């Protein structure tokens, strides 16, 4: 039998909000000291950084402030003197060198100022290069490489070696290479440093399009304010700290 009396109103349950996704990268208290003979040089003091999936972070700072050192640590190419770094859910502190190398292959893409393409491989082969180290099947890698080459607008240059490519074209190939294995995180060290302003603009337009489409998180070190302001966040590295 239903009640004749009005039932007291039930309190409204709050909506279940989804838990925030784990950050792609979580760095806490990162410090790094260089030993130069008897001298010690503290380059990084207390760097804290969390990067979410699909987020882009630009790091700016004067020369010598430790931007490249920070990038090396975040890229598992160097060990911090203190602090912890968690990437793809793993604390990198206890990893062996082989495990760190594996993580780089599977989770991190690099874009350098100097492009660093292998002169003896053509554009397509340079892009595919990363596949072998991540264990990607050859056929899948070839397909993905072609797709990326198309995205960066260089389909017709697939068989050209770096010597036949302009600076901007080489950097586009390098970007495609960095994205081949669908990394969680892209680390870019002055990607437009060697390009003239016009080429830089062209390359960065393509770059942001491709990265945003792939929802890859990115940490970008740059002096170029025009490049930095495209990022979701701009941080300044100063006196060993990110601000």
């Amino acid at each position, binding site marked *: 039998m239903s009640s004749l009396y009005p039932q007291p109103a039930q309190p409204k349950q709050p909506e279940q909000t989804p838990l925030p996704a784990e950050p792609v990268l979580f760095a806490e208290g990162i410090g790094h000291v260089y030993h130069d003979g008897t001298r010690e040089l503290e380059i990084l003091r207390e760097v804290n950084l969390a990067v979410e999936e699909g987020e882009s972070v630009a790091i700016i700072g004067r020369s010598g402030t430790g931007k490249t050192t920070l990038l090396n640590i975040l890229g598992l190419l160097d060990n911090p003197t203190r602090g912890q770094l968690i990437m793809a859910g793993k604390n990198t502190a206890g990893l062996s060198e082989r495990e760190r190398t594996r993580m*780089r292959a599977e989770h991190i893409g690099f874009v350098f100022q*100097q492009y660093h393409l*292998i002169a003896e491989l053509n554009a397509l082969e340079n892009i595919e290069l990363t596949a072998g180290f991540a264990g990607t099947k050859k056929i899948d890698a070839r397909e993905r490489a072609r797709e990326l080459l198309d995205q960066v607008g260089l389909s017709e240059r697939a068989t050209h070696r770096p010597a036949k490519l302009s600076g901007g074209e080489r950097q586009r190939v390098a970007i495609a290479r960095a994205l081949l294995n669908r990394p969680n995180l892209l680390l870019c060290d002055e990607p437009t440093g060697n390009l003239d302003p016009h080429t830089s603009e062209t390359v960065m337009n393509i770059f942001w399009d491709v990265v945003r489409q792939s929802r890859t998180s990115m940490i970008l070190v740059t002096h170029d304010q025009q490049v930095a302001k495209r990022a979701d966040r701009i941080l300044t590295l100063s006196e060993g700290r990110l601000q």
Partner: protein
Amino acid sequence: MIVKLALRYALARRVHAVAVMAVALALTVQIVVMAVLDGMLVDMENRVRDTGEQVTFLFKGDLLTQKEFDRLSAAFFSRPDVTGLSPKIVGLSLAERGGWYAPVEVHGVDLAYEARYGRLCSYLLQLKLDPLAPKWSDENIVSSKPPAFVSSRVAEQLQAKPGDEIVLNFTSDSEQQKIRRKHFVITSTFLSGNPYLDEMGIYIPIEEARQLFYQTDAQLYERVGLWLDDPKRADEIYQQLGDIVLASVAATPAREITVNTWTQRWSWYYESMVHENNLQEIVLTLMNISGGFCVFAILATLVAKRVRDVGLLRCIGATRMQVIGIFVLVGLMTGVVGSALGVAGGYFATPRIDEWYEALTGQPLYPPRMFGIAELTTVIYGWKVAIYAIAATLIATLAALYPALWAGWQEPMEALRDE
């Protein structure tokens, strides 16, 4: 990708071809030189074997009588592996002609047996004479003196030529003051390629030798030489042949029977040649190792120029071992290609080496009169070539190891910053 990268690096620079050529050249030289030396060894073995009997029984004290010799011959010829038999009397003498002297080893031979079974002078040179038959009774040389077939080097020492007379002198131990002399006419000269024979050899009829050395006309034999169907088996069967001798010939208190084979007689010479060949192998292998240093230098340069690539590869996920593997593979490819070219070069050059040498210097590699050979024999052993090629490949691969290890241990970011 590692193999592809190694291949691209190997093909990238022309200077790398120098590394390949270093391996190839060292291997070609090794094959050619050893083919010539091994050929000389085989040639020498053949000459030594074919210019004398393979097994010799010597009867000292009481010589073999004709009856004993006939019994022994019949017993030897009952074996299918005995293809020839030569009765002989051999002794040392001093040859003389007009104030010129030469120490000689006199071989008294039965012409009938030599004509049927002897294979003296298989490697005749220059005059290309049939050894004995025509010249023993050369109608151009008319003389009452018995004939002598003389080594051309002995003839040179005596300043003699065919048609000249010589005297053979002999003194026995028991008649020390008495010199027996016999006169002969040189009917022909020979150059057999057998070094000992060519230095001292003279052939005379056996009956003349009996008179010279034993002062007798009786049908007596001092030695019996046997020819075998397979001379290489001489060391294996000489004891069985010895049993035949003991069964066929009476043992007397004064008789001493000894036996030797051609390998035992010539072991000192053969072993010296083998020793020389072995030394050459060592020298040539050291030369190959030197070629390895060339590979090392070129690969070290290659790695030094690729330091940034190494940095990149490590950044994008290559392990140290993978980086090392790339450059070791380059070394391996250098070794394989260099070895292949070296083997091809060796096989191509070996049969032509004498011709090229003569075109360059005006005389053959081994002048006939100096070495007693009609033409150069070369022998390439396939198993030796395989060992040389494997060794050359291994040396090139090992030469790449240090530069490869250096590359593998580079820190990625430092490598990327390399100028």
